């Protein structure tokens, strides 16, 4: 159990998707459901994460050439992995600090899950609504994401 949470932020800088993995009995459907219900609560946390990531990213871009991106940072307790698409969609993992970079996994999630299930969804809007207004409301995306992350060797 080394992956703690996953977030997506839209180009409007709003958190549009959040998913957390709880350590206890993580396969039961109830855990999944209770997570769904809790998702809207830790709003402040989401804003704080975004603040940090946004500033770091801008700082990195200022120091080096435009193409540069920061990929992760590590504290003594956790590691944050970051991936941004050219359309300014930001995907974030929060994991155990000992894990190798998951940027390529984030990229994979974007290409195989986000594009397939969210972008190709008939009700897709180019800026998904913020989490308070429901966020990315696509159950199949959440379920496949959950399943996909559980298959990762580091999970």
């Amino acid at each position, binding site marked *: 159990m080394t992956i703690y949470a996953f977030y997506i932020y839209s*180009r409007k800088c709003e958190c549009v998707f959040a998913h957390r993995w709880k350590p206890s009995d993580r396969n039961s459907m109830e855990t999944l459901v209770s997570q769904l219900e809790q998702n809207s609560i830790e709003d402040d946390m989401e804003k704080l994460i975004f603040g940090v990531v*946004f500033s770091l990213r801008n700082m990195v871009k200022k120091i080096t050439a*435009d*193409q540069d991106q920061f990929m992760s940072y590590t504290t003594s307790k956790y590691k944050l992995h970051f991936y941004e*698409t*050219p359309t*300014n969609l930001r995907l974030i993992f929060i994991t155990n600090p000992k894990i190798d970079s998951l940027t390529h996994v984030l990229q994979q999630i974007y*290409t195989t899950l986000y594009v397939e299930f969210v972008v190709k969804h008939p009700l897709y809007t*180019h800026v998904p609504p913020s989490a308070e207004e429901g966020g990315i409301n696509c159950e199949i995306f959440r379920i496949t994401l959950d399943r996909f992350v559980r298959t990762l060797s580091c999970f």
Partner: protein
Amino acid sequence: MSKSKIGEDVYKKVDKVNAELFVLTYGSIVAQLCKDMNYEKVNEELDKMGYNIGIRLIEDFLAKTEWPRCADFRETGETVAKVGFKVFLNFSPIISSVSDDGNTFVLTLDDNPLAEFVELPADARQKLWYSNILCGVIRGALEMLQMDVDAVFLRDILRGDEHTEIRVHLKRILKEEIPPGDE
């Protein structure tokens, strides 16, 4: 690796639909629109439909090609022509007359697949831009990449012109959104 080569490679990998089915479907959409409204409105409507396609298509494009951000608008133009068009429509327009400031380019689409089997009625020849949906797609896709562009048809073989040309002009680079309450 050159851009055309990458376009070619990605094109080989993606799922395809029957070209005739696609072209005829598009044809019937345009025909229906022409029945429903006047030609100026049809142009507008096609552009709007294209825009809605473009804002999604760009994500699909990025997923398929893992394309990095282009350094300047000139490179964007080349990418649109050699990779974008190739991947989705299997042809590459020729890119020409890039303006000195690099903010305008013209795409020549002489083998535009949308226009296959098409003949415009005489009264539509002056007004209808049959493939106007392409302009919308370009506009929508580039807007998602922070580029506010104008894309318009200059000429069309269907109207009796020598070439089919789209002009794309960069109006401005959109500012990135910043979080509320942040400077």
